[in-house]
């Protein structure tokens, strides 16, 4: 009995020991690499000490190598060749949906990386709490980045007049402008019903009517709708997909924007033009020209309906025009003669036309932690990566010329050999676009190219992009608008309830928001 007791104790204790050992060894292997690496690198460089910057990216790139792969070596070589030495970087990635929670966690525990992606909202809060470095003087020392930045994006990345984040930039070619949205139309359907591309709002009405009633897919069934849309994402202002951007544009407003009227900014949803649009959409809905479930359609469902030839016109991105796009391929597989084009937004009764513009700095902004020890070196490094290679082709964005892509200097076009995933696996593209510069020189397909150009021609501007404290105090105003929008368009409420909405909007905090917006705007 005593013996077996001892046995049990021995087994139990040795088990504990093993667990403890595994635990310790694992912990060590988890912690040492960074320190060890840093030490080694410092040793290699000899006299000069190498600084390793920790960079956190808001991106999913499962193929990106943990050590940065060939890409890291080549990028560092490129930087060294252009005069920036003693630098190294370590990229960690967090998938976009979980990024904000993780960033908050790192900030709260004082572990912010040197350079990280951020949203405008978080930036304001972090700037208030002194987590971020002021970048005004540093940005001036970035000649390459300055070439690509738009002033309005830099303005958007400011908090209380100081720059706290680097926005993304745009290359000068016409395909590289920020907007990509518009009405995506089935061109083959237009031919089937014998109509031209709609130019005015009236034409537009005739087209969606024909798309609904005249059996544009010629299958003998009344199973199509003229116009589709998508569920609203209340957190964004430029929600073209949900609010039929181009239709509001025909009246020169957008319901979630701020527009100037007699020297005062007014919320788009409270302007009389909005009522006119609502009246129009309500009649269209009553005539069953709009998909009945547009207000609950998510992206997946919408793509399902597009590739099933159920809807003729949708407010969407020009990317669907890309023959490589999955919806486009799926559609063509079912209907070989199908063709998608992006049309100019319809012209309204007073000659207005356009799409809601995109929020500045919407693409991606990145900040530097206040604890970063060598910010000067960091921005030098970030900037040098934006320096155009002698050949003129992309480098950071795409990888090695000849292996990852080919570049045609005469037409200034890029042809990818590798997919994005293969580029990630080498350590290039998205994970290392520390300052993202939009480079779509790979767009060679004519309809897509044309679509992107159209998308950038007609834009309804928002006169006020910033957030004021009152917007945070009354977050339900967007919900209120969306509720009335959906209910009025569906005919659940009479059109005149729009007046009720305006009264409610002002009562439920809109008055305060409008006051603060105007105060800030006049500055």
């Amino acid at each position: 009995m005593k013996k077996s007791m001892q046995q049990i104790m021995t087994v139990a204790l040795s088990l504990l020991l093993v667990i403890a050992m595994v635990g310790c060894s694992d912990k060590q292997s988890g912690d040492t690499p960074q320190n060890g690496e840093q030490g080694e690198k410092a040793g290699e460089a000899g006299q000069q000490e190498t600084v390793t910057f920790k960079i956190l990216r808001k991106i999913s790139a499962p193929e990106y190598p943990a050590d940065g792969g060939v890409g890291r070596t080549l990028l560092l070589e490129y930087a060294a060749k252009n005069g920036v030495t003693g630098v190294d970087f370590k990229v960690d990635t967090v998938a976009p949906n979980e990024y904000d929670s993780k960033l908050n966690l790192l900030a709260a525990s004082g572990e912010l990386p040197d350079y990280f992606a951020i949203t405008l909202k978080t930036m304001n809060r972090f700037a208030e709490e002194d987590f971020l470095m002021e970048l005004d003087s540093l940005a001036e020392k970035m000649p390459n980045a300055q070439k690509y930045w738009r002033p309005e994006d830099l303005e958007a990345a400011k908090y209380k007049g100081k720059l706290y984040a680097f926005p993304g930039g745009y290359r000068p070619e016409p395909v590289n402008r920020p907007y990509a949205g518009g009405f995506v139309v089935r061109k083959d359907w237009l031919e089937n019903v014998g109509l031209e591309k709609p130019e005015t709002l009236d034409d537009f009405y005739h087209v969606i009517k024909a798309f609904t009633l005249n059996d544009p897919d010629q299958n003998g069934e009344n199973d199509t709708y003229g116009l589709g849309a998508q569920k609203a994402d209340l957190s964004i202002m430029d929600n073209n997909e949900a609010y039929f951007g181009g239709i509001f544009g025909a009246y020169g407003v957008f319901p979630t924007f701020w527009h100037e009227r007699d020297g005062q900014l007014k919320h788009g949803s409270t302007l009389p033009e909005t009522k006119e649009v609502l009246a129009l959409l309500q009649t269209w809905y009553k005539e069953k020209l709009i998909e009945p479930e547009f207000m609950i359609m998510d992206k997946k469902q919408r793509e399902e309906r597009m590739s099933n030839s159920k809807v003729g016109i949708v407010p969407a991105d020009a990317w669907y025009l890309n023959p490589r796009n999955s919806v486009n391929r799926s559609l063509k597989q079912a209907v070989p003669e199908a063709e998608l084009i992006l049309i100019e937004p319809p012209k309204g009764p007073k000659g207005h036309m356009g799409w809601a513009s995109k929020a500045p700095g919407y693409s991606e902004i990145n900040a530097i932690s206040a604890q970063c020890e060598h910010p000067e070196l960091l921005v030098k490094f970030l900037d040098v990566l934006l320096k155009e290679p002698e050949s003129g082709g992309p480098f950071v964005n795409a990888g090695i010329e000849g292996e990852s892509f080919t570049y045609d200097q005469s037409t200034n076009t890029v042809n990818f050999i590798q997919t994005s995933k293969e580029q990630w696996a080498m350590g290039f593209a998205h994970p290392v676009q520390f300052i993202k510069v939009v480079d779509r020189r790979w767009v060679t397909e004519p309809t897509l190219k044309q679509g992107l150009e159209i998308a950038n021609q007609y834009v309804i501007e928002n006169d006020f992009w910033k957030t004021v404290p009152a917007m945070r105090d009354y977050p339900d105003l967007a919900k209120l608008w969306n509720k009335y929008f959906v209910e009025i368009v569906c005919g659940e409420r009479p059109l005149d309830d729009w007046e009720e909405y305006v009264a409610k909007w002002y009562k439920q905090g809109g008055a305060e928001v409008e006051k603060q917006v105007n105060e800030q705007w006049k500055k």
Partner: protein
Amino acid sequence: MALIKKSFGGKVFDICNTIFLILLGIITFYPFWYEVCISFSKGEQALRGGLFFWPKDFTIEAYKVVLGGQYIWQAFRNSFFVTIVGTVIGVMITASLAYPMAKRTLPGKKILTVFILATLLFHGGIIPTYLTVRKLGLVNSLWALILLGAANPFNVMVMRNFFANIPEEIEESAFIDGASPIRIFTVLILPLSMPVIATISLWLSVFLWNDFFRGVMFLNDRTKFVLPVLLREIIQSESQIQSDGRMTETITQTITASTVVIALIPILCVYPFLQKYFVKGVMVGSVKG
């Protein structure tokens, strides 16, 4: 059964019952089957949606993309490690905490119970938890996932109640035969408690296998990623490439479906092995009079 003659009504009931249960079975099985079909279908077909009873244009393209990644096998290894080691440690700790609490004579039992129940009602919140993990040096270590969930208060309570239901006479008889408390616990109580141990193991292993949130929060290095974290990255990377308008050769729907299947199969295999322990009846008749 066959000897008992059934009335007409009984037969009708049996038939209806069988049909109803088969339908119920199909309804619960179909979503899974749908995912399997989608994952083996060609992307263009999957995108168009609709009913799937069989893969359309059979292809294993999606699995090639998901399993062809550099880190997927590492993620599998990490997930297996966390699940197996985490379940063993978790059950050990839970059982050894629950057993004394089932004893009426334990001093300070009430305070201990309050301590444990308090954690069930009030959570520390994610930031304090993260700070604790960091102080313990467990950030970016798989042990963070294993140790944090090792003693779940709910599991402790479930086990405690089970132990409390084991007749005291069994222990007394062993005690009279000269067994020490630890021997009673390991040789007598644990084998008698296989049903509850199997249940807790199942809960723990499913929880650890699926544990996504902690994986995201505590692991930074992609060599340390567990399966849910990596699969999530794979799915999100698909839509990301699409929204950027670049090279879109794959289709999100099939990739998502194949990750679902890949993540589900291993943990599904645990059920049949644990099933046999869900029979509570070993103790029937062990106490007489």
